């Protein structure tokens, strides 16, 4: 029988992994934008917070942060509900996972966006002001659209790292692709086969992502001259 009848579960695990990665990407993307804006345009307090966030998060392994944050969210919540005399709130592990991964990779996205913001030529912003645009107009019409183009390669890279990092959530107990294949491997005493299947699925996901990113970069670089050496 195909994959000892574990095909359906593996498909479910794959979907769980994709769902987790996409939702975490959304969280990380937003946190990254906020972080980069705070670093570049914020006052001293916001700058300090954003600086601490990106430095601290990027210097600690993602697995350690996952264990730290994932379990601390629940315990912190318990403390709050205890103090208020409310019944215990069970936080959904999937949502905790999304928030945790999003929080970690938000720091990486913030650095990407910061670099991209800085890559937009200053003269263009001044030109916008000279046209009488408001700060918001300069931001939304000149700075932001160009920043996204500069950020695209970095975003793609971060996405691939994030996608691969979701493999760690099986350690904190989510039933993702790795968890499912590990269970199947143990039950049928054919670990090698099932872990290889997981590897191939990840390889397919990252390869498809790379192709889409390559296509996007091409699309958004229309009108940009490449240096031919």
């Amino acid at each position, binding site marked *: 029988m195909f994959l000892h009848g574990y095909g359906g579960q593996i498909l479910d695990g794959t979907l769980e992994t994709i769902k987790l990665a996409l939702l975490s990407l959304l969280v990380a993307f937003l946190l990254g934008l906020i972080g980069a804006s705070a670093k570049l345009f914020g006052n001293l307090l916001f700058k300090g917070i954003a600086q601490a966030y990106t430095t*601290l998060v*990027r*210097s*600690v*392994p*993602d*697995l*350690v*942060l996952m*264990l*730290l944050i994932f*379990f*601390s969210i629940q*315990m912190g919540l318990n403390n709050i509900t205890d103090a208020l005399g409310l019944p215990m709130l069970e936080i959904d592990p999937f949502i905790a996972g999304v928030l945790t991964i999003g929080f970690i990779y938000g720091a990486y996205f913030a650095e990407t966006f910061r670099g991209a913001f800085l890559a937009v030529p200053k003269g263009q912003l001044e030109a916008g002001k000279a046209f009488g645009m408001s700060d918001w107009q300069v931001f939304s019409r000149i700075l932001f659209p160009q920043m996204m183009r500069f950020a695209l390669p970095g975003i793609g890279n971060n996405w691939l790292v994030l996608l*691969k*990092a*979701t*493999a*760690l959530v*099986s*350690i904190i107990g989510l039933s993702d692709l*790795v968890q499912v294949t*590990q269970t199947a*491997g143990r039950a049928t*005493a*054919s*670990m*090698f086969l099932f*872990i*290889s299947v*997981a*590897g191939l699925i*990840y*390889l397919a996901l*990252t*390869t498809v992502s790379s192709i889409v990113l390559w296509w996007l970069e091409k699309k958004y670089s229309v009108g940009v001259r490449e240096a031919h*050496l």
Partner: protein
Amino acid sequence: MIESFENFLTIINEYWEPFLYWDGTQFSGLAVTLWILTLSVVLGFVLALPLSVMRVSKNKFISGPVWFFSWVFRGTPFYVQLLLIYSGIVGLEFVRDTPLLYTFFISGYNCVVLALLLNTLAYTIEIFAGYIKATPYGELDAARAYGMSRWKMYTRIILPSALRRALPAYSNEVILMLHATSLAFTATVPDILKVARDANAATYLTFASYGTAALLYMSISFVLVWAFRRVERRALAFLAYENN
């Protein structure tokens, strides 16, 4: 706030020895993390030199296999690679029947270092190959004009220049490797995170246990960043490297 500070003190008081070097029966914690990191990064660097030169070869039969290797190892999560090597290979029949292979793959240390090595090798090859390809054309022309052989061109011009320019990207890769070593505990290797898990299981002080581990990893990261900055400032002085 004060309570959690006291928790940290409790953990550090009771577990500083395992966190740094010795858990009572074997080496553990920081010493183990640094040992597996050094071993895999040094081996990876040495192997990446010839392989990155092969990677930029015009001959598809030479560059193809290297490309395939780095595609597979960069396209899959490190955890999956480690599981495959540590849990998967040992279950294969021909490995069980070959005593030499069996004794190699039954050891968590061997598997972790092998997995880390292959993983960093794949990324390092791509980094080095990228900078080899980006060698300024004039440098190659000059080397050819001097009548240098291929070997001389690589050892005197291309590699010294490419490796220097690759330093910032490579330092990033070493930090990511440090982060990857935190998975060693899944293969029973007593690294920093394993000690933190033991401390957590014994005391239930989750935040303090993992927080101590995080602080240790953070310190190693900062030391690595600082050391690479110094090396960069020396090695890239000729590029008028104005970072600080």
